[in-house]
Structure formats: C-alpha cells, structure tokens
C-alpha cells in the first residue's frame, strides 16, 4: 500500500526488495522515460481525473450522443443521402410533416399506451419476484436464484421473440396442448394480437425492472420489518408503510428503464404484433426503407419520439421519485 500511495502522489518508488509477484514494475516507475511522461501526468490530480474520465466520455460521445447528433442533423436536411448535384438545405419541414398529418399521431399514441401498460404489468409481475429473491430466499442462495432469472436474457431479443412465436402460434405449443387435453377443437388466435405483443414486451424487458427492484429491496434493513412486526403491523401494513416507500427508488428506476426501452423496441412489435398494433418505430423505419429522400423525415420522427419519451420519463421520475431520484 505504501508504495501505491507513493505512486499516486507521483514520487519516486522506494527502493524496496521486489515483491514476488513483480520484478519489473518498480524499475519501470523509476525510469526517466516514465517520470517525464505518464508519471508527470498522473502526479497532477486534474490530469488524473481527465485520464480516468477519458474512456467513458469518449464511449458516451461516440456511441450514444454521436449517433443522436447525427440523426438530429439529418432531420434538418431537405434531402439525404446526399447525391451529386443535390446539395441539401436546412429546413424544419420534416418536423412539420408529423404535425400536419394526423395519421402519424395514432402509432405514436399507441406506442405510449403499450409502453405504459407494459411498464405497469411488468412492475406488478416482477415486484413479487424481486421481493422473494431479496428477502425470502436465503442469502447464500440469492446469487443462484438471480442467475436462474437472468439466464434467459443471455439469449438475444430475436431468439426470445421467436420462442414466443413457437409458443403462441396456431400450431404452437400452447394451442397444441389445449387441443390435446380436449379444451379446444380449434386453435385460439393468440399470435399477432395485442395480447402477444404485450406478452412479448413484458417478457423481453422484465430484466430492466428486476435488477433495480432487487437492488432497492435488498437494501431495506430487515430489523425495520422485524420491529414493525413486534409493534403489531401486519404483512400488508409492513409492505405499505416500510417496503414500498423504501423501494421507491427501485420502482422509479425500473419503470423509467422499462418505459424507455419498450417505447423504442422495433423487432418485437414487427414480429409479434398484428395489423392493429403498428407502433411508431415501425412507422419510422418505413421512411428509411422506403423510396429515396425520406431519411430526413424518419430522422425527424425519431427525434420527436426521443424527446417525447424522455420528457414523459422525466416527468414521471420527478412526480413519483422526487428531486433526488436518479435513473440508476
């Protein structure tokens, strides 16, 4: 530890006997080249912070903010992809299309309805599971229980979506089972309906609810629940007065993550939805896959969805979570 502290302060490494796990590092840290380059940099606190922050900042800018900025730029162009002899001009006309054509409202509203419903159902389904794992399962078995819950999420979104198709199709496992036990003589149309879409959304995004909830419930001190029980509080009162308020941060984080994820999913609604469940991401994709010059309109619609979804989530977090609530 002493030598590490010395290193952080930028001083010379003490000439101690080389530890068994390394024989070359002290020599490297004492070298003139190191001292005049990296050593000089890390000796300064501000520089050290910049170096540590550089990788995450570059990652966030390149992978998250960069594409959104690019999309914003395209949304303001009159034509894109740019072709020879057709220089684009800057315009807000692509945004105006959304507000001038009522037909585009319905898929956006539908997206919000499905995302909100999926968030509420996911919370109701996952909360007892998270509580069970965090408070009922013995501490030495919790990691195994969590692992079992997380295993399905190691498979990709498409694989899990196709597994739902095989489950709910007319000749899928569920209809075949119901027919074999004599409960039905004709298949129940479960696939390509609002039910299959909702089922798929809840199944595919429940991880985003489970982890924040588990984390929040796990932190609730058990002695608070024991004390409440000693004072005569029943299970429901204990839940309402202690567990629910103390897991509020997990609920807000989980709901926000699930809402923002489910409003933007593309493949699942395409594969599981029916003719009455066309959501806004599919409308947006139509502009990118259609005839030329529609990328700017698609980009404008994507920005409208992004802003409206983030605004909704922010309002929810502020109302339910209060000023101190953070997403993670």
């Amino acid at each position: 530890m002493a030598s590490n502290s010395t290193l952080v302060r930028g001083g010379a490494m003490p000439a101690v006997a080389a530890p068994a796990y390394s024989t070359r590092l002290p020599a490297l840290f004492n070298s003139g080249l190191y001292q005049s380059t990296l050593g000089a940099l890390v000796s300064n606190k501000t520089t050290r912070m910049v170096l540590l922050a550089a990788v995450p900042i570059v990652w966030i800018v390149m992978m998250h903010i960069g594409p959104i900025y690019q999309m914003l730029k395209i949304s303001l162009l009159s034509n894109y992809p740019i072709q020879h002899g057709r220089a684009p001009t800057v315009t807000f006309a692509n945004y105006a299309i959304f507000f001038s054509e009522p037909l585009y409202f319905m898929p956006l509203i539908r997206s919000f309805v499905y995302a909100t419903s999926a968030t509420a159902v996911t919370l109701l389904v996952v909360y007892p599971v998270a509580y069970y794992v965090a408070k009922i399962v013995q501490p030495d078995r919790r990691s195994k229980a969590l692992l079992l819950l997380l295993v399905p999420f190691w498979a990709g979104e498409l694989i899990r979506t196709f597994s739902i198709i095989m489950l709910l199709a007319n000749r899928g496992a569920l209809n075949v089972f119901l027919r074999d036990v004599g409960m039905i003589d004709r298949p129940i149309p479960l696939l390509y309906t609002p039910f299959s879409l909702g089922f798929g959304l809840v199944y595919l995004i429940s991880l985003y609810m489970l982890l924040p909830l588990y984390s929040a419930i796990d932190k609730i001190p058990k002695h608070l629940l024991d004390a409440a029980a000693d004072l005569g509080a029943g299970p429901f009162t204990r839940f309402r007065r202690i567990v629910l308020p103390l897991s509020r941060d997990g609920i807000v984080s989980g709901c926000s993550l699930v809402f923002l994820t489910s409003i933007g999913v593309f493949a699942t609604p395409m594969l599981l939805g029916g003719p009455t469940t066309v959501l806004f991401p599919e409308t947006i994709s139509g502009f990118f896959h259609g005839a030329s010059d529609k990328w700017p309109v698609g980009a404008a619609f994507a920005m409208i969805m992004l802003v409206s979804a983030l605004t909704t989530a922010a309002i929810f977090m502020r109302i339910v979570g209060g000023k101190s609530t953070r997403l993670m």
Partner: protein
Amino acid sequence: MPYIIRPLPSWAQSTVLNVTTYDKFLPQEFLDKFQKDSGIKVNVRLTDDQGKQYNLLAAEGANPSTDMVTVAGHRYSQFISSNLLQALDTGKIPNWKNLNPAYQNAPWARVDGKLWGLPILAGYEGLAVNTNYVKDPQSWDVMFDPQFKGLTSYIVSDFMTITMQYLGFDGDFVSYTDKPEEALKATNAARDHLIKHKDMVRKYYDAGSEVQQMFINEDIYLGHAWSGPAAKLIADGHPIKLSVPKEGTYGFCYTLNVVNNAPNAENAYKLLDAILATPDVGASMQRQSGFASTISGVPEVLTDIERAAGTLPQEQVERIVFFSPVNRDMKNEMIDKATAEVKAA
C-alpha cells in the same frame, strides 16, 4: 452515418469481389468453385430490403463499399436514374448466349436503350392458399371474403398495387404519367378498401420467410405472396397452391448489377459469366430461392416436384404483367404514403 460504424469503402483489388445480395441467391457450392477456379475471393453481404440497399448505395456516392448489388424489378429504374449502376457490357460476358432469349431483350430490362443488369431470377406476386382450407380461388375477391376473417396476410405496399388492379385501376401507374389527380384517386380507393377490410388480416408481413412461417403454423389460410417463398413451400411438400387470379398480377425479375464506380468491376463480369456457364447454377439458385431461373436449360435439370412448384397454367402466365420502369417516382411517393395510412388506421 458516423464514420466509426460506416462500412469501409471497397478497394480495387485484382483478387476480391464484394457482392450485396439476398440470402440463398448465390449457392455456396457455386461460390466455392468460382473462388477456386478464378482465385477471386467473393465477399457476400446480405440484404433484405431494396429501399435500405438503395439508400446505403446512394449515401456512399462515388466510393461504394460493394461492387455488385441485386436489384428487384420494381426498383430497377430508380437505381438507374440515380446513377448508381453502370450499363452492362454483354461483350464481356461470353456465356451471355446461355441466358434465356426471353430475358436477353426483355423490354423492362432496357432503360435508355441500354441493358443494366443480368436477370438471374424471375417471380410474380401470386395468391397462395392452404389447400386444406381454401379450394381453388379464381379471384382476389377471396382475400376479402368474410369466411376467412383474420386468416389472410400481405405486404401492404405490394398488395396495394394488386388491390388497385382488382378495383379496376392501373396498379403500376403507367397510365397515370402527368395525371397525379387520377393516380391519387386510384391510390386512395385502394387504401380505403384495405382499411375497410383490415379485419381480414392476421398480420402485415415484410419478408418471404414470415409468410412461409405463417402458412406452416396455420396462422393464415391464404395470402398474397411472392412466387419464390410460396414455390419453396410447395416443393417442400406443404399443402400450398399458388395461382394468378383472373384480375391478373405483376411480375418482376431480380438482376445482378455492377455498381457505378465499382472498384472491382472486371471481377464482377467474371462472376456474371460464371453464373451463366451451366444450367446447374441456375437450378441451384431456383432450388434455394423458389424463384424461376432465367438461364436456358434449367427446367431439364430440376426434378418433377421442383418443376411443378414453379409452373403455372398457360392462361395464368398470360395474366402476369412485368413491372414497368415508367412513372416510378409518382408510384413510390403515393404508395409509400398510402401504406403508412393503412398501417396507422
């Protein structure tokens, strides 16, 4: 597109060829043999959507990341008018004579008096039915028959043109050049008809594999389908029948095209020549995709079942009209908008 995730441009190399095509269009055994014989390494990038392919190629401009693309008939003129393809020099394809004569000088294949691609597979939009539940339909009317409520499927943009034709309009917009009001009236009529009968539809699909899956799972009993995926189901022994109803339908051809400014254009010509070398390649392409090969002698190489899967009675063949290159911009604009309206309704 941010540079970090943009495909790298294709470099001119004597031993490389970059091809963008649909899954199963170029048989692997053919590619293996071509690579071994020619010493050219073929990099295949798969596509699943003409619009996406068009937009990416247009975005790459003078530095394309691919040497060849596969263009479907209804997009043919759009690629050409956007200067994305180079005219084909058949003099560089010694085996050109092996292309079925019907395709060598097909009217739709010539734009501005030039040929722009090698036709490789031909298809049409047909009415596919599960013969266990639907008996020998003669008209597109069956797609709107209440007894099959919730049991049909189609690609909205494709079926829009069929519906226009079914309602007595020109679904290919050829006769609407300089008549946008007439075109809009016809498009809106088809749009309203599809919205009115939306309850007939189980699902709007996008890819051939989706309609195959729905037929196999019996989620649908009938639907509008490209001939390739439907013929593949028939050849695989499923109880599916494909026909061209009395109101007619549209045909199209997939072409392999050399991209404008392609760095490895000479290698592209070598691939085109190799495709035409023997009917075996065409038979393999037909077997895998379900679409009909354009190469002479292919039917003789196919089995009876494979041949039957892609065969129509003569009177139905005569009902197929190939998509025209005329008035595409107006058609794309109106059909795209009407498609969004049907889906949103």
